[in-house]
């Protein structure tokens, strides 16, 4: 009985999937329509697919600049997070029996319960006073904000790694640094993938932190640019949707190619 295809569930899920895809269908079609077509049937496909909206959006919002900013912040954040958070988690996981490391673990973890708006106002004063209201500062702060969750899942993973290998290496005279970078760090690869995916998505789509940290509009990331141009976008939906589509496209394309990997990575994180 359990080996028969469940058609009822298949059909229901396909109907539900239309609800998921519909807003994206709308985004794509409107981005390719002319303003004149907007008065017609909104659900129809564009009569003549036009790239005008995209060309205008690229010029008006300076898309290459915003794309560059988003890529830079995301890449730097992932780099910081993978190298430092894994190291911190390793040191904590191997010393959990000591009071100080146990305290550190719970100290970091407790930050998961602190909503960002609580620290937002003082943090903004502090970062602007220290000249951190730029992209590097933003990536650095991302590293601080993601520490709690990443340490939590990295520590869970390190605990599953056998300690014998490290002990053998230490006896052979390797320093603890070497043990970490040469043995442990490569062994953490599956968890690095999970952390990299979750961190990259969060950093790429983040709006609130860049909004309060970045002061110069030439540093705006993609979501921030969509926000900054709302005045113009609300009178020109073709322009707006072309810009939205371009802002979402890099992640969508990436998702199409590596979705199995992304879903697997997130699932692995959730089972920890």
């Amino acid at each position, binding site marked *: 009985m*359990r080996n028969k295809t469940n058609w009822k*569930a*298949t059909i229901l*899920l396909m109907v*539900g*999937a239309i*609800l*998921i*895809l519909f*807003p994206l269908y709308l985004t794509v079609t409107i981005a390719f329509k002319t303003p004149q077509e907007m008065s017609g049937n*909104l659900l129809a496909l564009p009569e003549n697919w036009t790239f005008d909206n995209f060309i205008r959006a690229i010029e008006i919002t300076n898309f290459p600049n915003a794309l560059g900013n988003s890529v830079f912040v995301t890449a730097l954040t992932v780099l910081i997070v993978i190298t*430092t*958070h894994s*190291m*911190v988690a*390793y*040191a*904590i996981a*191997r*010393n959990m029996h000591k009071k100080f*490391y146990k305290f550190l673990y719970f100290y*970091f973890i407790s930050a998961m*319960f*602190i*909503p960002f*708006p*609580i*620290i*937002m*106002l*003082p*943090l903004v*004063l*502090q970062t602007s006073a220290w000249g951190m209201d730029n992209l590097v500062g933003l990536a650095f702060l991302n590293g*601080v*904000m993601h*520490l709690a969750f990443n340490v939590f899942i990295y520590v869970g993973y390190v605990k599953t790694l056998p300690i014998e290998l490290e002990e053998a290496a*230490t006896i052979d005279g390797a*320093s*603890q640094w070497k043990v*970490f970078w040469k043995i442990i760090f490569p062994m953490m690869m599956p968890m690095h993938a999970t952390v990299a995916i979750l961190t990259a*998505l969060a950093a790429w*789509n983040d*709006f*609130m932190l860049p909004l*309060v940290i970045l002061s110069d509009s030439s540093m705006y990331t993609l979501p921030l640019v*969509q*926000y900054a141009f*709302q005045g113009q976008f609300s009178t020109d939906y073709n322009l*707006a*949707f072309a810009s*939205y589509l371009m802002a979402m496209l890099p992640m*969508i394309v990436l*998702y199409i190619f590596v*979705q199995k990997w*992304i*879903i697997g990575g*997130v*699932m692995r994180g959730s*089972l920890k």
Partner: protein
Amino acid sequence: MKKDHVFLLMVLPAFLLFFIFHTYPALQGIFYSFTNFRGYGDWNFVGFFNYINVFQDGRAMSAYVFTFQFAIVSTILVNIFSLLVAIGLNSKIKFRKTLRATYFLPFILSVLIVSYIFQFMFAHMLPQFGQAFGIDFLSRNILGDQNLAWLGIVTVAVWQSTAFNTLLYLAGLSTVDDQVYEAADIDGANSWAKFWRLTFPLIAPFFTINMVVAMKNFLMAFDQIIALTGGGPGRATESISLLIYRGGFEGGQFAYQSANAVLYFIIIVAISVIQLRILERREVK
């Protein structure tokens, strides 16, 4: 170098930076909540003055009421939908991988941009649809209606958050052994009974996590609201995060909103703890 020293070197920089950029601002916020600081210039201590004011402030109260209403309704809906979708995806269906990828897609998209797209749909598409089919409450922009705007925000939140929670439930369902069901099949249990007696208790820990995580995220809602209504019409959909942002940065209420933020923090922690307690007790049963 000694082994212990290396371990210490691995954690100390992170410890210091975390303290400077996370704990210290939090402490500063608590400190300023007892002053009349505006974000610049001189200040004096004012004791609990700001805290008392938050309780008497109609704007703050309506933000709390809206945020709770939104968070509770969204949390319940997200969990119902994601559990249903996860069970569907976990059964013997065709095109499973494609469907799973589709349902997870909203997770990778920016909340802000998705909300802008829905804002267009609420403003221009649904009214056309409502008028064409004579559905009264859809024939105007619900985001422009004091009493209905929050439902628009719930819609977007549920559309997007169902993706991630579905995946967590799928992870939970993957831990359930098929043999459990085979035993139930022999006993002749129907699928409804199988779900409530077998599946649900087995994935209860995932239910707990999903409820707590969803509730906490919705209590902090910001992006959706900025994009959909900007807190309007009037202040009907101003969330607590938005109030702290607006008052703190634009209204010169640095100290006052810090007090608000401290209360907000206490409430979020209290809710998370209560949820965990109640839901974990259920799990044991």
